[in-house]
């Protein structure tokens, strides 16, 4: 019931994608990552919405737009528990969690200024790992430095 109420706070869309369960503080980051401010489609978003699971959450709805895995991978870096819901003619046709891939290529900048990827024309490549506390980390394939989530910057 709760979910329905929150969804009603943001207008329903006929066709397109709903991204639910975004951490409230990451909504604008997801917005930026997906370059939604440049979209010519209708985009709705809400933040600090009630969520049974997460307390507060963010949600974005984009009309007439479906995402490729390369784009959803990017979301998983800042919203690892986000749910992607594809809507066609008001019906949910696909629903699934975003999935963090084992490797992230070409979309994140290495935080090490001395890394070859920041000094030569080299596409970045990171392995997705976890530290002993279970925190997600990115391991640069080139300079072998481990980057924490707060240092992630998209290209």
């Amino acid at each position, binding site marked *: 019931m709760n979910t329905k109420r929150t969804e009603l706070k943001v207008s329903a869309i006929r066709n397109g994608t709903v991204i639910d369960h975004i951490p409230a503080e990451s909504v604008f980051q997801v917005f930026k990552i997906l370059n939604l401010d440049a979209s010519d489609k209708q985009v709705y978003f809400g933040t600090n919405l009630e969520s049974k699971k997460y307390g507060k959450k963010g949600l974005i709805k984009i009309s007439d737009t479906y995402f490729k895995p390369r784009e959803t991978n990017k979301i998983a870096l800042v919203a690892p528990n986000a749910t992607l819901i594809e809507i066609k003619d008001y019906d949910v046709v696909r629903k699934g969690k975003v999935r963090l891939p084992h490797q992230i290529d070409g979309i994140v900048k290495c935080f090490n200024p001395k890394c070859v990827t920041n000094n030569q*024309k080299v596409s970045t490549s990171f392995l997705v790992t976890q530290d002993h506390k279970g925190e997600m980390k990115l391991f640069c*394939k*080139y*300079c072998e430095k*481990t980057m924490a989530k707060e240092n992630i910057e998209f290209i």
Partner: protein
Amino acid sequence: MMSTLKGHSLISITDYSKEDILKILDIAEEFEADPRQNILGNRVIASLFFEPSTRTRLSFESAVQYLGGRIIGFASADTSSVKKGESLKDTILTVSNYSDLIVMRNPLDGSARYASEVSPIPIINAGDGANQHPTQCLLDLYSIRKTQGRLENIDIAMVGDLKYGRTVHSLVQALCLFGARFHFVSPDSLKMPSSVKTVIKNAGLEYYQYTELSDVISLADILYMTRIQGERFPDPLEYEKVKNAYILENAMLEQSKDNMKVLHPLPRVNEIAEDVDDNPKAYYFQQARNGVYIRQALIAAILGLK
């Protein structure tokens, strides 16, 4: 004995399995017994040093000469086309037309991995910035095995700059394959990073941390000294406090085990007093000589000659 290492670059010590490491050490032993082996024939080794290095470059070049090979290359970026703005990729692709193997040192972290991706011939990383220096790691392992008769379960004390020192990080990673007890001596501001400690924990091994050098001398099989570099300290006053904290003097070795050896990747500044040099436990100059045998072994194995 044809090697499985043939044709493959060596970029990071973690590229090698325990078996690969042991194979290189065994071949190095052969070269120590008989260093002058004319096996390279007319092969050409490119030595590309984008930043100056005395020990590593000369030791590689000496290894090639002992093996009867030829060397082309440069000893600093100033005398290369980099000065004209050439990309690393272009330099590597060009030089790979002129040689059978490339030895490269470059100040950028990760430059060696990148070079190995674009190069049609194998690359040996002779140091990529603050990242990796795998031939140093192999010569350290060789020196440990040679002086202790084994690599397994040694007590190794590492002293000095454990935060930024790439040699100690790689050596810890490699020794985790063999089992070891690690004793880390450093100022609080230069402690071993947690990522390296995680590697030790994951290997089911133990480490201990100290701030006094005297605490570890009696329990170490290997005392691995490193230089504390002033430029690492954000506050010059902090550096002044610790710069003379770890100076090994000959008298301190009295309480050490009979089998103990002192290693240092060199260059040293003042962290080992010169009166230690004549002590039979001082091993750092032999350690540097072992670097030639290790580099001979790598060149021979990668070119499929051993």
